[in-house]
């Protein structure tokens, strides 16, 4: 069992991650990843079931995550119909990882979103399968995998989940 202190730091990282996204503060979201190492994936649940290799978002290196932030902030602006996300996470498991100072964490996650006319719906539901590195006090994601139960998304996804 992990110490309360470690758990609290894992949770703090998770909360920072969701709050950054809900605040549309993508640079802050980027910072929750281990610099030059972090990876980010969104994987349709059906692919896990059927063992298919594709992801919906597939950032297998930190540079890709950086490019993603740039696309949202610089390329798509003024085109997409904007929306406001709100994340809810529930850590269901956290264990020491294979490498020293790393931890594996699984959480349930749901994301509600509100469109520009003020109506809310479920955007996404699934799990986070995270790998975290504890660098002294600061935890950072080495890898975040979002397993998307609702693999047919109700709209196109602009922001990371």
């Amino acid at each position, binding site marked *: 069992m992990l110490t309360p202190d470690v758990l609290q730091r894992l949770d703090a990282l998770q909360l920072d991650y969701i709050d950054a996204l809900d605040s549309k503060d993508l640079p802050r979201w980027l910072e929750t990843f281990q610099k030059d190492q972090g990876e980010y994936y969104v994987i349709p649940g*059906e692919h896990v079931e059927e063992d298919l290799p*594709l992801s919906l978002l597939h950032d*297998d290196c930190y540079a890709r995550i950086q490019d993603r932030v740039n696309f949202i902030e*610089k390329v798509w602006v003024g085109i997409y119909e904007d929306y406001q996300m709100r994340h809810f996470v529930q850590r269901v498991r956290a264990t020491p990882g294979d490498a020293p100072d790393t931890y594996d964490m699984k959480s349930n996650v749901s994301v509600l979103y509100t469109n520009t006319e003020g109506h809310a719906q479920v955007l996404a539901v699934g799990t986070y399968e995270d790998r975290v590195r504890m660098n002294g006090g600061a935890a950072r994601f080495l890898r975040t995998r979002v397993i998307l139960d609702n693999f*047919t*998304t109700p709209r*196109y996804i602009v922001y990371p989940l």
Partner: protein
Amino acid sequence: MDMPLRALPDPLNDYRWPAAENEVPKDVFSRDDIYRRELERLFAGPVWHVAAHRAELPNRCDFKTTWVAETPILVVQGDDSVMRAFYNACSHRGVMLETRRRGHAREFECPYHRWLFDEKGTLRACPAENDFIPGFDKADNGLAQIRCEEFLGLVFVTLSDETPPLREYLKGMEPGLELVLMGDGDCRLLGYHKTVIDANWKLYRDNDGYHTPLLHKAFTWLNWQGGKGSQTVTEQGHLAVTADLKPLSDTGILHDPSLLEFKAAIRAGGEGPQAKTGVLVLSPGTLISKALDLPIIRYSLPKGVDRTEIHWTFIAHKDDDPEMLQHRIRQANMMGPSAMISLEDAAVFNRTQKACATQPPNTQFVKGFRPGMDLAAAGQNDEVGNLAWWEIYRRLMGFQREAA
């Protein structure tokens, strides 16, 4: 779906199409009665729909379930390797036979009264058959079969007897299909991106070369130039644009420019079909493209007049080495519902749907249009390529033009 044999007198008989050849009425995207007529005349009409690619059910006795509008379909690869399609309904009392998306099955058992069908749709067993209506014959009670033909692994279905043979229907698209399906169509499935657009299915297929460099800002932002290309428009309203999507010359803007490599072209020395890029619209509603190293089949599945599910289906070639396979998976960041240069399309379709009830009542295709022109001669960056299809649509739907 209303069964054709119970056709009703239809107030749509008075509907008038605009006289101008370059205009399309906005309400074809929003009127429920038009959508209902499409179910009969178009989706159940003399057209071929792409239901699957062999890559999705690669082995004998693999199946895939899908939809032609509101009609559920079961596609099965027989133990003889032949692709067959059936209405996905038990022949007894109509229970949907298979509810899984894909799978492997030698037999299909209906849960209600346990009638048992084999993978060729034959009724094999039914409990208490000896007490059935006199004259009942299992041979007459197999699954209702659907016409089904295959080309380069694409599995086409049609619900109508009047549809011409597939090769005739596809005439003119063969080179394009070979290009996007990597020559022989011998593919493996990588996975799906599935999403919903709040727009009519016809908006999704309404594609033009005019918008590409304008809507998709990535091209200008990355200083990414399209290459020369050509456009084909067929009699059936299919469209093939083989404008080159050249690999990006690294301008230092992307942190990870490797994503936009054109690996097959490099390997081929920049020559030949491997080095080409293309996008095809197969009437009525399937898009198939290969952008750089990324071949995709896009099924558009209407779920009502103003809602469409898009199933982006990503494939690789069976002969891909691990490096190429991994490259294609990475390149899926480039195209898809949430991807670098295609996220914008859904936004534009949704926004068009919301504004159907506006003046003027018609949309207009102006770029490259000349009255009386040969639509098949449209240029690669024109928007008139779709007009051939709209004319087919108008006729299939029985809409007369207004007097000019």
